[in-house]
């Protein structure tokens, strides 16, 4: 009995709950309650504030890692074998089509959700001080997600995969001076072949996922350190923030901060740094508005997780991931299209290689990264930032329109063909 108690003790590492120390250690020593704060603001739990998009994106990533590891057991990254393994998953492996379907649809879902999450953060102005850098981390995560999806696209080694990657990597090769070399580095050759498949596989299963995990940890940690989620826009008071003092700020600022014995929370970090914390703190009058993370936040997140998993499962049960014929470098399908999220760029490339291949992606990425530093407007309320919202909306709509045109309105020879007109390619 003693041994069992000792083992249990070693797992939970806290005193019995009957003591006050034990009760507090339940929180202090729990890793999950350190990713979350112990308490969260009630208003932040509202669905209409965040739509749980960040969580859903994260849960999709968890699904992708789980199903991805399972699929790796049946995959050899070598052209003919890779395609045969796909056929095996389709025809011979128990639950193969289902798990491959889940991986495929979760991947598309993650690209969509990470984008929607970005839109939500922009429209609520949540990238503003002190959260500027977390927006940058988020943009990096967006790019990594696209990279993961793009590298995964090649792995089935069918016609769809081969030509999407051929077209996709050629868009990148329009970059001046280094474009060709970068493509060569990525493909391990001049064309998409064995070397490219192996490299994409390494990127897809090792490099990019570990980077996503690393940046996700930073992303989550900074949410906590930036004071949890930003407050819902509708809760913002008409005027406020003043007197916020930054740890490690400039000396002048630090001097301003006469530390009063206030009712606000204060910091005593190693008895060296004193002052109020960087983030939006909870004032006593707001104390009633908070709830314990467990069970209130945990339960909601659990429901969001369940909804995500069941959604993906339901889709995978009825729609299997496509698999076309074996990749054939000698036969280009007409039209050959990049993955859907790059079709906006391909659309631009069809008009101007320089614009679509270099200028547009470079400007987009730089603009996204620069948003929190260029937007000097401190207010988060929509009516104070009409211009920013207009500009961002135009950016989103243009992107969507180009992708829709590229996906549904481009037929053989990249001619403008409405989706309801059926064109037989290669009838010549």
């Amino acid at each position, binding site marked *: 009995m003693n041994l069992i108690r000792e083992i249990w003790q070693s797992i939970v590492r806290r005193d019995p709950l009957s003591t006050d120390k034990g009760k507090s250690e339940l929180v202090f020593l729990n890793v999950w309650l350190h990713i979350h704060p112990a308490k969260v603001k009630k208003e932040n739990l509202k669905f209409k504030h965040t739509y749980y998009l960040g969580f859903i994106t994260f849960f999709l990533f968890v699904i992708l890692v789980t199903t991805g590891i399972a699929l790796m057991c049946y995959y050899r990254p070598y052209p003919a074998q890779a395609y045969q393994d796909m056929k095996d998953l389709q*025809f*011979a492996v128990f*639950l193969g*089509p289902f798990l491959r379907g889940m991986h495929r649809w979760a991947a598309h879902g993650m690209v969509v959700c990470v984008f929607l999450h970005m839109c939500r953060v922009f429209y609520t102005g949540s990238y503003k001080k002190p959260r500027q850098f977390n927006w940058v981390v988020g943009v990096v995560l967006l790019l990594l997600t696209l990279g993961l999806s793009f590298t995964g696209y090649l792995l089935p080694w*069918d016609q769809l995969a081969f030509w999407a990657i051929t077209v996709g990597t050629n868009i990148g090769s329009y970059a001046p001076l280094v474009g060709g070399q970068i493509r060569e580095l990525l493909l391990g050759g001049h064309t998409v072949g064995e070397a490219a498949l192996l490299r994409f596989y390494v990127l897809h299963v090792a490099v990019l996922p570990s980077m996503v995990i690393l940046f996700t940890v930073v992303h989550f940690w900074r949410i906590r350190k930036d004071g949890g989620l930003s407050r819902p826009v509708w809760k913002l008071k008409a005027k406020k923030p003043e007197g916020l003092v930054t740890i490690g700020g400039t000396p002048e600022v630090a001097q301003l901060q006469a530390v009063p014995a206030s009712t606000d929370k204060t910091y005593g970090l190693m008895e060296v740094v004193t002052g109020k914390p960087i983030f939006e703190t909870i004032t006593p009058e707001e104390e009633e508005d908070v709830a314990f993370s467990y069970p209130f936040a945990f339960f*909601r997140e659990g429901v969001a997780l369940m909804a995500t998993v*069941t959604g993906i*499962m*339901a889709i995978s049960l009825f729609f299997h991931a496509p698999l076309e014929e074996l990749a054939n470098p000698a036969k280009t399908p007409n039209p050959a299209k990049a993955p859907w999220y790059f079709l906006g760029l391909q659309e631009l490339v069809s008009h101007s290689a320089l614009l679509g291949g270099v200028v547009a992606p470079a400007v987009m990425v730089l603009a996204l990264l620069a948003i929190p530093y260029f937007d000097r407007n401190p207010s988060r309320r929509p009516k104070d930032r009409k211009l920013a919202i207009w500009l961002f909306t135009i950016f989103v709509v243009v992107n969507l329109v180009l992708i829709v045109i590229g996906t549904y309105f481009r037929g053989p020879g990249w001619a403008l063909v409405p989706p309801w007109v059926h064109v037989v390619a290669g009838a010549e």
Partner: protein
Amino acid sequence: MGRRLPQAFFALSLLALALIVAAVWQASTPSWKTYQRQFLQLEAQGEPNAAAKAAVLATPLEIHQVLLPGLQRVDRCTTCHLGVDDPTMKNAPEPFRYHVGLGTNVPSKFGCTICHGGQGLATDQKNAHGNVDFWQTPLLAKDYIRASCGRCHKEGDIPGVPELAEGRHLFETQGCRGCHKLDGVGGSIGPDLSEEGASQRSPEWLEKHFLTPSVVSPGSAMPNFHFTREQARALTYYMLSLTNQDMGTYYSSLRTIPSSSYGRELFVEKNCIVCHAIGGVGAKVGPDLMGVTQRHSREWLDEQLVNPQLVYPGSAMPEYDLDTNSRKALVAYLATATSEDAQLILSGKKSTLTPEDAAIEAGKSNFARFGCAGCHGTELQGGVPNPNAQGGQVPSLLHLSDDYTKDEVIEVIRNGRMPPLDNASGPTPPLYMPSWKHLLSEEDIHEIVEFLWSKQQKAKDSW
């Protein structure tokens, strides 16, 4: 706390349970299991007692597959077609029926799809039979399956499939190579045919195309050769057999079938009758071959054909570098050879040719083999339609010497040329004279011109 959160949680977890159970159910009930149960029932009927019946019915249900690394394929057809190698299933319903007439071509060594087409890796009927998107080679229709014999047996006569030899013969004599490449040799006016059998075109399409090209391929430059139905069928068979797939060492060794008819072909081709006699008919340099298969074992004869010096040091017999099956074919022929047949072979041999005649003969064969006949006609009559060029037809070559010297003709063959246009602003004519200098040696060209000139003589005489 949201009021309906626990209910939502419960509903979602129940849905998750339902979905995973549905997925497992979907994965556990593939159609091949139904077929296997039916087959086991069928097999159990034939068993004498209850214990044996139960033992048969207890056979685990599993995917059966034939691994064929040499053919680069894996065939799972026998997952449902369970009776292919079981003679007691001769009258069973499909998919369980016994495959009659397989001979040595057993599924465990050759699989199914190499002959029948279809998708070997698939385990449901629709996908396996290949009539789905993204699968190029669906099951071959019954009439055309025998064409697949030519995928391994690329040379010689194939017993039971005369169409293949006929098709190959037509291809080499009707001038197809003038426009089409096959295994790297031929013109480039029409498509390369090296992998025609693996293309998406259906056998029916090919057959119609040979009968009247313009019906299925409007505007095609291919002239109508007015093939008969049998010829079109033979050519279709030949096309279907062209896959250009690397067959691996074992399957490549099956290029020829060791039949006695192929052995006879070799006997004639290698001129054995020049040294050997059969039953006294023929030359006496080497031993008489009548009854040689009774005097020596097959292994001995095989060894003798590989290396005559090893068996009889100092033997005058040359080494012929024949592959295994060709040697077997020769031996098979020798077992049946008669003096009457030797007489036939002797009488078929032409008297010795003069060097001039030999050149003309060689030119004639070049003319057919490299495809000149495709446009200019086997009798040099021309007449193949070629809109907007030289009166709309490929010209006849029968009056060549009236307008050209031999050297001028050699120049045209060497470098090719575009035909003069009837109407300068009209469309480009589909056919033109390709340049042959990379394919034909100077000697080949010279022989062809000699052949052409020999025809000129006759044409003038007939005037």
